[in-house]
């Protein structure tokens, strides 16, 4: 498991810090943006996502959010789950969750942006 080898551990540590740093501006941008989209209809929302700057920020946000989520959940799981079988299956479930969630979000953004 990557979290248990020393090289993997250092990579994990740095990756966690980098995604944390990236998420400071990205999450503040997201909250500020979401506030302007309260009550927005479909046309307004898709036009907003389709703007290049917003699309770039959304893609970066999605990658950072799901990467950081996967890493954070892995650390929590490794701390609290000690049975080998439960540990492995939880880590696989975590991977599945972040990959499926992240890819769905990215596909949705591209669908919205390139259809309108």
């Amino acid at each position, binding site marked *: 498991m990557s979290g248990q080898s020393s090289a993997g551990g250092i990579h994990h540590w740095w990756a966690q810090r980098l995604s944390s740093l990236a998420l400071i501006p990205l999450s503040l941008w997201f*909250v500020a943006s979401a506030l302007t989209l309260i009550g927005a209809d479909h046309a307004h929302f898709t036009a907003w996502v389709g703007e290049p700057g917003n699309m770039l920020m959304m893609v970066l946000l999605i990658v950072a959010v799901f990467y950081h989520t996967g890493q954070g959940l892995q650390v929590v799981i490794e701390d609290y789950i000690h049975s080998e079988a439960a540990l492995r299956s939880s880590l696989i479930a975590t991977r599945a969750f972040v990959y499926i969630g992240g890819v769905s979000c990215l596909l949705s953004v591209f669908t919205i942006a390139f259809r309108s």
Partner: protein
Amino acid sequence: MNTGSTNTAQTNDGKAVRSRPLSPHLQVYNPQITSILSILHRMFGVALCGGAVLLTYWLSAAAYGPDAFARAQWFFGSWFGQVLLFGLTFSLFYHLANGIRHLFWDVGLGFNMSVLRASGVLVVLVSLGLTVATWVIAYMNAGML
């Protein structure tokens, strides 16, 4: 389980060894602001996974079309949706502010006990303030304030 109260323990072959320090057992650990803020960081981090799910729902609904998106917008505006979003707003600002505190620790700053407590109080105040400010703006933008 050895909670650190004895100084020696037995190995399988019967040899006595010095017991090693264990990480604090939450059940027997005297709660302090530092430890409470630390466990909250994790709890809110896990809660924010729900935020990732709602983000996925919001974007997918918009990709599906106007009807699905209208349902999603209705859900987020419903009382249940608002309660969820309010909790997620506080979780996000807390995890963000305390995460910045963690980044300072990573470069070796802020370990002095008085600084540690003061930065903890600051994290709580900042996350409460940002949550309230966000929701005041939200209700103003919704035309309800």
